[in-house]
């Protein structure tokens, strides 16, 4: 199937460059994980909805620090999009080039361009539903994934829990237990950064885990912890009846991480660099396989594992 055919009426007319008629003059600056993302071209309705969604992360209008990534929002006609009977969709079509990424999704088209810095452009027919239909957030996730990647980090499909000032990251595909372990950890009195997406950054002092405003159902309710925490354990999750913690061989560890690095892991032009970064991450803090049951015994196992 050709790129865009799932979502676009005229896939061949996908924008070749970031241009068009904006929705309005609203500008929104959103800061997290040490960087500012600048959105321009929003309508008043779109900006109000985004401000409500990202509330405390939005900078006041009188602050204008330079944005690390600029994202422009353009108007598109409703007839440009093909519904196919859907009322919503989480899936995307992706198309890769060495210096660009094209995204087609439900009622939107998006581009990331490296010129040479990363910039984003979003075309949508949605005004009131830009945020409620997750168009804004889904595109934002892709922008953040690439921005973080360019700085040597990785966006990991994972749950991150803070215990005694350190972060424990549990990753795996859907169904591996990220939400379950988040609930168990929260019930045991630990803060949950996110049960869905977390930023891992390799620095001179070690690996830091940073909270991102992207979470699953559990994480949206848990706004307690914020900021960056040193990574203490990195675990590939498995559900089971008894808790076990085992070392993973480096190739299996890198393969498991690769499977949980969304947006980048399918990009043929970024895959070698992604493998480099994941190898470096595993060299810093080797991934272990954690099998856990629906109780908090795994915490004792993790503490014992640290002592070994």
């Amino acid at each position, binding site marked *: 199937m050709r790129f865009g055919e799932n979502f676009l009426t005229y896939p061949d007319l996908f924008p070749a460059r970031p241009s068009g008629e904006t929705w309005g003059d609203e500008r929104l600056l959103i800061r997290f994980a040490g960087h500012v993302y600048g959105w321009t071209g929003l309508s008043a309705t779109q900006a109000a909805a985004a401000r409500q969604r990202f509330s405390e992360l939005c900078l006041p209008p009188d602050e204008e620090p330079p944005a690390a990534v600029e994202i422009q929002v353009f108007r598109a006609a409703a007839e440009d999009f093909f519904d196919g009977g859907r009322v919503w969709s989480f899936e995307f079509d992706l198309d890769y080039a060495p210096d660009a990424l094209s995204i087609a999704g439900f009622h939107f088209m998006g581009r990331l361009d490296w010129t040479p810095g990363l910039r984003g452009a979003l075309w949508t027919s949605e005004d009131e539903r830009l945020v409620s239909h997750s168009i804004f957030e889904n595109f934002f996730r892709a922008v953040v994934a690439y921005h973080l990647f360019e700085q040597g980090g990785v966006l990991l499909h994972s749950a991150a829990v803070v215990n005694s000032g350190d972060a424990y990251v549990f990753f795996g595909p859907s169904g591996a237990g990220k939400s379950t372990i988040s609930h168990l950890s929260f019930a045991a009195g630990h803060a949950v950064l996110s049960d869905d997406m977390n930023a891992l950054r390799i620095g001179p002092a070690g690996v830091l885990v940073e909270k991102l405003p992207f979470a699953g159902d559990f994480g949206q309710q848990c706004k307690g912890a914020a900021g960056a925490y040193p990574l203490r354990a990195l675990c590939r999750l498995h559900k089971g009846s008894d808790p076990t913690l085992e070392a993973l*061989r480096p190739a299996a560890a890198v393969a498991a991480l690769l499977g949980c690095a969304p947006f980048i892991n*399918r990009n043929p032009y970024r895959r070698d660099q992604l493998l480099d970064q994941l190898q470096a991450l595993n060299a810093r803090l080797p991934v272990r396989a954690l099998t856990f049951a629906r109780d908090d015994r795994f915490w004792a196992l993790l503490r014992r594992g640290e002592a070994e």
Partner: protein
Amino acid sequence: MIATDMVLKRCADTRYRNIGGEGVVVRQTASEVLVLNEIGVRLLELRQQSAR
């Protein structure tokens, strides 16, 4: 089952990396990641040598 007269060839859409003596193979079109043990790595590297 691999037959004795079968000629093994690496798919054009794969990327391969040797990590610690084992292999990570990424199949781009299938969005699939495979881990090879030492024997799999040896087979793949022999195949690469013979293709040169």
